[in-house]
């Protein structure tokens, strides 16, 4: 038994959807009769392990059923992981060990490859699939407003505001018109910051959660907050234009349905009538922390692969794929809690003093979450990456319909 023959036969096994581990493959010694093509070099342990894990995902079933899994596998095996990380590790070979060359990355059993490395390989595959097909340009506009419909504007935490604006538009109530009634959708400040981070990443800026908070911590010390969640400034700006009596604050809605109904009630919007209207995809998708982080990593790689507008289209396509109805909430890390808590209390106090109509409890704006993760989890990221690869490949290689 030779390393090359075992590696070749195992690679072929994986290319066709096999899920046997390297150790089990070697122990079974199934490679006696295979011929290794001249000049073939085994892929890295991380690439091989990613293919093995892909075959195990339910999202890969359409590829396996269509007999096209090997095309996704080849995409993984023929590409190096993007960015910085560990060097591609050669496959470990059991005793009696053949001494390696004495240099190069240490050999590894693929099941022992760190998850972060598997994520890195998967991010490269996602980027490659998106480069090949970045998706259609986003339709930018909401439907036209109906004549004489009630004028209103929404502002506030970006993901919530976008979702509410879209829900109302689907029901026939399109924001706009003058002079508007204004609804400020105020999420608790930690959630609001997480939404701004998500929106920044979805706009193609590959900033990390902690890096994002580090920057705003310094700006908050100068009294600044991200413009879309600087609620007192937004409310004051609109109050100066339309009067404080036309500004409503919806504080910390527990979910989207409640947010939509509260906004509709505050504005006195009539109930939806007739058929629902078509809307473009959301500007910002609801993503989990891991979803945002995967998008950030892929966005960074896409930055070196494609220029605008393909970059924006590709990021949006992936965001749509990673979107979740109820994404897991994210808390701010311990070192950032003091300034976020201070700002949140100041925000709640300023809104209270502004004389606006408040719907909900302003106290909740200052209640920061505890007991939830303060950053993306590597295990969950790997799951998203694997499913993202399988689903994108299924759309490209099998023609599966894209989720709306």
């Amino acid at each position, binding site marked *: 038994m030779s390393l090359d023959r075992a590696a070749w036969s195992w690679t072929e096994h994986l290319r066709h959807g096999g899920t046997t581990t390297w150790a089990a493959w070697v122990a079974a010694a199934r490679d006696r009769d295979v011929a290794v093509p001249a000049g073939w*070099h085994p892929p*890295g342990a991380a690439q091989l392990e990613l293919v093995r894990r892909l075959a195990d995902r339910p999202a890969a079933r359409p590829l396996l059923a269509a007999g096209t899994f090997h095309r996704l596998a080849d995409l993984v095996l*023929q*590409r*190096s992981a*993007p*960015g*910085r*990380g*560990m*060097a*591609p590790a050669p496959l470990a070979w059991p005793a009696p060990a053949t001494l390696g*060359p*004495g*240099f*190069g*990355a*240490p050999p590894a059993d693929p099941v022992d490859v*760190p998850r972060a490395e598997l994520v890195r390989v998967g991010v*490269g595959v996602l*980027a490659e699939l998106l480069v090949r097909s970045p998706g259609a340009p986003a339709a930018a506009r909401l439907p036209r407003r109906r004549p004489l419909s009630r*004028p209103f504007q929404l502002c506030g935490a970006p993901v919530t505001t976008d979702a509410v604006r879209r829900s109302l538009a689907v029901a026939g109530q399109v924001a*706009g*018109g*003058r*002079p508007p009634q204004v609804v400020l959708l105020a999420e608790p400040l930690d959630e609001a910051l997480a939404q701004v981070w998500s929106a920044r990443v979805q706009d193609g800026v*590959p900033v990390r959660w902690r*890096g994002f908070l*580090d*920057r*705003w*911590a*310094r*700006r908050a010390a100068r009294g600044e907050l991200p413009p879309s969640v600087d609620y007192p400034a937004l409310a004051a700006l609109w109050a100066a*234009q*339309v009067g404080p009596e036309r500004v409503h604050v919806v504080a910390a809605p527990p979910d989207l349905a409640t947010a939509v109904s509260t906004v509709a009630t505050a504005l006195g919007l009539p109930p939806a009538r007739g058929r629902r209207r078509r809307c473009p995809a959301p500007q910002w998708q609801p993503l989990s922390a891991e979803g945002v982080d995967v998008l950030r990593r892929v966005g*960074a*790689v896409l*930055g*070196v*692969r*494609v*220029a605008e507008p393909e970059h924006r289209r590709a990021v949006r396509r992936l965001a749509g794929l990673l979107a979740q109805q109820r994404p897991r909430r994210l808390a701010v890390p311990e070192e950032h809690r003091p300034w976020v808590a201070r700002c949140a209390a100041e925000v709640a106090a300023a809104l209270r003093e502004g004389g606006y109509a408040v719907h909900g409890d302003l106290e909740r704006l200052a209640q920061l979450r505890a007991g939830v993760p303060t950053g993306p989890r590597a295990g969950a990221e790997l799951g998203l990456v694997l499913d993202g690869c399988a689903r994108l490949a299924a759309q490209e290689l099998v023609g599966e319909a894209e989720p709306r």
Partner: protein
Amino acid sequence: MSDAGTGRTVTGRTVLVHVGAPKTGTSFVQDVLWLNRETLAEQGVLYPADRFDEHFLAALDLMDLPWGGLERQAVGAWDRLAERVRGWTGTVIVSHEILAIASRQQVRRALDSFGECEVHVVLSARDLARQIPAEWQENVKHRRTLGYRRFLDSITDPARTGELASWFWGVQEVPDILDRWGGRLPPGHVHLVTVPKPGAPRDLLWRRFASVLGLDPDALAPETDRSNPSLGVPETALVRRLNQRVNHGVLVGDDYRLFVRELLAHRTLSRRVGSPRLEVPPDVRRWAGDLSDSWIGTLATRGYDVVGTLEDLRPDPVGGAEGFTDPDRPDEAAVADAATDALVALLEEVTRLHESQRRLEVEVESLHVELERSRSLWFRFKRRVVLVAGEHRTVALALGVYRSLRGRSSRSA
């Protein structure tokens, strides 16, 4: 083209790919090639670059390597470079030190992209006892805050876990780099240029480079002062401490590059004299010596074209006359002295920028006055109507009707 250094004869289309390693005079060579690219082209040698960092961008593109936002300028850079390589009928030189870390797949893509031609790979290498502190210093100049001992522990750990050790060995492990880049080439097409020991003639390295690149070392007498300057122990300790203070949201990438790396590190601190130099501690020197022995043994059997001598890669058994100075515990007075020089440089820069700002403010003010004068009464009336429309629904409706009649598609924000 005849090569004096190697005696090889090259006919037809030839591509020389200089893949590193970092800290072996690569910036200097690239500058000579950049400054003399027109002269070289007249002699049939192409250095395909319209900007000095073009090969760096191409390398980022080849390896899908994000680099603090610079990668956005790198989209398609490798394919453009390869196209120019394929379109040239003589000799082409491609050079960047981060190419050293390319994987086998990336090397294959790179070499295939050159089309039908004779490829030569060039790697310049220096002994590990000088490369290790140089790499740590380079890390510090790229915002890292890792202490020297932790850096040493990381790279001497055989497991090589972590990004830092992987990068270090990816760009410094000579036999492995040559394996990846030269594995598909005849050994005679793989050229290892060794950096001479301290005390060698000043232009010897340049002559070695020139010989393997097929250049006339005297005709292209280097006039460049561009190099990657090094810092002493207190200066490096100072930059590391600065990193600890500016890394968390204080300075973004471009500002860091401009003010810390360029202004402070390269233009101020690297010019200080008399500071102890960075070295490896005795235990790491011994370890590096043993490792280098094994490398030299391996390389001697490979049949590569060695320009210089493999003995250059063997670290001296003892360091410089000053002995090892630990940058994790620097002389605080020396660090304070370096910090004072840094403050002076920054004050000079602040003064210069302040003057520039004052000049621009005056200019903007006068432009505003001119613009206001040139605006017509009709424009001012329209602006007033738009403002009033924000407060009165009737005016807003009238404005909407006017706009729809006029056919304007946009709305006021």
